[in-house]
């Protein structure tokens, strides 16, 4: 039976409270089991040999010496992965990324793998594998890859989204365009037009836990995979497809996950570990080193972006355009499309056009990174918004308020908005005490807005009531940052029981129906919705059992405050039956009591945020210190405010790192020069101030509690907010992220002449 998804303005007893997370003790005592924390009897250790070249033909791989090394049990190369994809190009891309097929496409691309009795032996074996390469010309810069005469990464790629369809190969995999109105006419009406080009460098999600898995695949094609992932069901489907297995025969269990931020939505080494296991017929453990994580998993795009916005003197924007060039690594992606869709989503625009180009280069396959592609687009757009406000002589916040999207606005990427939070977050910025803090010498203030779509997707949950009335909730979304607590709160709220009566388990792929990957800020939104419905499903059963116990029709039973109550005068002699009492009798009233729900959780409410930041720049060294930071975001409804704030703060911190210091640095040889935490500089504790947060709650009309996803939007504004703050501090417009000390110092000096 479908349940009503619409928002109802109900009161809450538990939702919104700051309870302790149920997995807290496991995680503070070291008991929680992450990807690399389990072992199996007879397990082998796998290591991967990776290309030292940016682009090279693999002429020959000689594994004979390695195979003879005592203790080596299996070796695989591209030849060990027959094509089971049935012509599905994107699946083949995933397979080719996991293991090169005749050509190494980037520094770090896997070319062979070994499973041996221990790590030492596996390392020795890797050194004995002889690969004969023929180096090919390479390109790592997005603009260079689009230029005439650039080395072509794949000769089969024809630019999609262009009419007529091209007949020659290109590094531009896809062109995507969004918008409406007539931008030329719009610019003609403008009194002032500002146009600027921006660059952002490639960053990594930087999760502290490297990719890790323990794989077992038998000769009968059935197997198990323990893995750190954001989506074990998706991993199951992808691995099954790539290896030619029945989906039902591969059981995938998600370990505790040590951070993902999008980077663990994709398979990297898991099919390799499974194939090694099949070949050796023994369990295989494969843990990436940090160096491998940087070189061969999950970075986001580097970009080059042109933004043009025109406005009337009264501050009304008449037209806006953006051209966004995003590199997607060595395989096509959808990253430029997301950039083009999100660029102008915060504003109410009559004439708007954004065009994205998805570009291939010799870098690792780009993966999702928290609100993928939106931060770079926002850097360009929100910088130009500030420049335009300055030209107009308007306050930057007022200018944005004047042009903010609202209910009924046609979004630049197509849909008509329902109730949304951009206006309220801007108003909150204006009213925030942070705005009144005085700035000192060399200090600057900046603000910026951000948008993310959010996602719902396929979700399936089970809720089982024990004989003592305690509850097991099993969900299929991974707990990336405290969602067990939120989901337990929801289940307890619905059932009317105590929070600590509910235990939440992340079910493996054999215990639940398919759940989409925990991405798109969907964990609490979609599993929350399915939990509400599973609880309501269980309540139906509880009511039936009560009715049977009382021997009255079920329509005379209501569920209130954790107990069944018999309605009507005729039933006034029937004392309520608590959940506990009904559960205790369940063996004799029909057996176990359970609730279940499967749903495609549509209607994830769009999310908006406005960030405000003060910085101080040392004009002699170009060093930037973040003094104050405030995040204001619409959460729809904050189920557990601590973890909502945590998402706001974490996203802001990642954005601060990206804005100031984080970047992939490639040498002329096309090799990554900084694949480690020493030179890939994510913020340390002493780099940051406390990050102030303000949660706004503008209910999502498509969720019973009004929940919107909160995980991603917080990384969207920081690049631009800090860019605006630094530009205000030094009096020079910054247009290249990260705004590292050398770049800032150079900008100051160039401006001084």
């Amino acid at each position, binding site marked *: 039976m479908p349940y009503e998804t619409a928002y109802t303005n109900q009161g809450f007893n538990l939702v919104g409270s700051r309870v302790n997370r149920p997995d807290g003790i496991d995680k503070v005592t070291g008991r929680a089991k992450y990807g690399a924390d389990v072992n199996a009897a007879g397990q082998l250790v796998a290591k991967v040999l990776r290309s030292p070249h940016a682009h090279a033909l693999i002429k020959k791989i000689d594994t004979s010496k390695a195979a003879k090394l005592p203790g080596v049990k299996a070796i695989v190369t591209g030849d060990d992965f027959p094509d089971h994809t049935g012509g599905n190009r994107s699946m083949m891309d995933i397979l080719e990324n996991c293991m090169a097929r005749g050509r190494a496409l980037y520094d770090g691309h896997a070319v062979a793998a070994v499973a041996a009795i221990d790590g030492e032996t596996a390392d020795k074996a890797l050194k004995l594998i002889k690969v004969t390469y023929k180096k090919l010309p390479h390109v790592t810069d997005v603009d260079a890859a689009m230029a005439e005469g650039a080395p072509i990464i794949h000769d089969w790629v024809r630019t999609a989204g262009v009419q007529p369809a091209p007949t020659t190969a290109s590094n531009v995999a896809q062109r995507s365009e969004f918008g409406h109105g007539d931008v030329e006419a719009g610019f003609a009406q403008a009194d002032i037009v500002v146009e600027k080009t921006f660059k952002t460098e490639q960053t990594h999600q930087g999760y502290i836990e490297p990719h890790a898995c323990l794989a077992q695949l038998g000769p009968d094609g059935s197997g198990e995979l323990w893995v750190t992932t954001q989506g074990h069901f998706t991993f199951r489907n992808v691995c099954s497809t790539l290896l030619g297995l029945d989906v039902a025969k591969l059981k995938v269990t998600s370990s505790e996950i040590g951070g993902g931020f999008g980077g663990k939505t994709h398979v990297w080494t898991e099919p390799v570990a499974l194939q090694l296991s099949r070949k050796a017929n023994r369990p295989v453990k494969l843990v990436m080193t940090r160096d491998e994580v940087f070189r061969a998993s999950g970075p986001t795009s580097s970009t080059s972006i042109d933004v043009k916005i025109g406005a009337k003197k009264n501050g009304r924007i008449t037209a806006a355009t953006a051209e966004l060039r995003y590199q997607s690594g060595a395989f096509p992606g959808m990253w430029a499309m997301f950039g083009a869709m999100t660029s102008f989503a915060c504003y109410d625009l009559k004439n708007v056009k954004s065009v994205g180009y998805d570009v291939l280069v010799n870098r690792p396959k780009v993966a999702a990174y928290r609100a993928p592609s939106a931060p770079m687009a926002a850097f360009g757009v929100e910088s130009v918004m500030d420049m335009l406000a300055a030209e107009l002589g308007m306050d930057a916040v007022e200018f944005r308020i004047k042009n903010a999207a609202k209910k009924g606005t046609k979004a630049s990427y197509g849909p008509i908005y329902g109730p949304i939070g951009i206006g309220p977050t801007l108003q909150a910025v204006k009213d925030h005490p942070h705005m009144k803090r005085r700035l000192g010498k060399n200090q600057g203030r900046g603000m910026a807005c951000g948008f993310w779509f959010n996602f719902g997707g396929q979700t399936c949950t089970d809720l089982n009531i024990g004989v003592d009335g305690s509850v097991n909730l099993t969900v299929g979304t991974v707990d990336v940052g405290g969602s067990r607590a939120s989901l337990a709160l929801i289940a307890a709220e619905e059932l009317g029981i105590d929070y600590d009566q509910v235990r939440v388990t992340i079910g493996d792929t054999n215990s639940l129906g398919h759940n989409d990957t925990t991405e798109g800020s969907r964990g609490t939104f979609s599993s929350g919705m399915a939990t509400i419905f599973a609880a309501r499903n269980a309540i139906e059963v509880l009511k039936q059992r009560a009715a049977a116990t009382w021997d009255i029709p079920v329509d005379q039973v209501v569920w209130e405050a954790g107990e069944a109550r018999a309605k009507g005068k005729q039933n006034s002699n029937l004392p309520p039956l608590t959940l506990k009492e009904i559960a205790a009798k369940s063996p004799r009233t029909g057996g176990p009591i359970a609730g279940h729900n499967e749903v495609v959780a549509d209607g994830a409410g769009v999310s908006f945020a406005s960030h405000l930041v003060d910085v101080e720049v040392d004009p002699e060294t170009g060093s930037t210190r973040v003094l104050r930071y405030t995040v204001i975001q619409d959460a729809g409804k904050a189920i557990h405010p601590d973890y909502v704030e945590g998402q706001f703060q974490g996203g802001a911190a990642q954005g601060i790192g990206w804005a100031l210091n984080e970047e992939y640095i490639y040498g002329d040889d096309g090799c990554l020069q900084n694949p480690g935490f020493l030179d890939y500089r994510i*913020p340390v504790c*002493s780099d940051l101030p406390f990050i102030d947060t303000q949660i706004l709650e503008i209910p999502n009309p498509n969720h019973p509690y009004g929940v919107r996803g909160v995980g991603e939007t917080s990384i969207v504004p920081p690049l631009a907010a800090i860019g605006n703050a630094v530009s205000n501090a030094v009096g020079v417009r910054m247009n290249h992220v990260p705004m*590292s000390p050398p770049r800032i110092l150079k900008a100051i000096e160039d401006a001084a002449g």
Partner: protein
Amino acid sequence: MRFESPTTTKAAVSLLAAEKGVSHVLAGGTDLLVRMKMGAIEPDLVVDVKRIDTMAALTVAASGVHIGGAVPAAELGESEKLRTLWPGVVEAANLIGSDQIQGRCTVVGNLCNASPAADSVPALIAAGAKALVIGPNGKRRVSVDKIVLGPGRTSLGHGEFIEAIVLPARAPKSGDAYLRFTPRTEMDIAVVSAAVNLTLARGVVKTAKVVLGAVAPTAISVPAAARALIGTKLDDAALEKMAKACRAACNPIDDKRGTVEYRTKVAGVLGRRAALLAFERAGGRK
């Protein structure tokens, strides 16, 4: 690989001297183990010197300071007396890595790793520190600036290692300072660094030593920068002259951590700031 942990320097010397393959001394291990992990080196012998009493000893007096080769940098920071006598040396040593690294890393290891960006080295050179080298041919006392020959290369012979670093007697009215530039506030490698050690007489700088790090293949002394300070109270003209001398002495490279242009510019800035700090610590008043 063999692992040995002798309890005397003599035993350590014979182990190292007898080894035909690749041997390494293990003090804090914060560089050695990283290089092993990266596969950059595959030692046949590792000699842990932390169980040698004399190498684990730190003695601090105004007449001189003895820093054993196995003393973790954290211990230097815990000595109030050392912080008072040689604040620049201590802050340089304490800037090497995190608290976790501090619990292990040593100034001798920092020196012998021979990185142009080593934090403690400019401060040690500015302080006039000597290295007590021990080896198969006995002991020798070498100025710290003679140890590093270039990136990853030292003047130590086969079987030789540094038993301790010795700082000279501290003259009254002296002060030292070390500043480095890093993009992060912690957990970073110096892009540029500057150490200044000076002594005052009647309120003006009488002697000075200026050393820059990460702007050349080794840490470099800049006598011209020191001369610019001598005889002054660090007036603006003296400081500008000093900064200019620092910039002129730079011979850096472009790499992932910084550009030639940036390093050169900031060397002058840090030199000037370190001089002011050392001057203030020596009791100087402008």
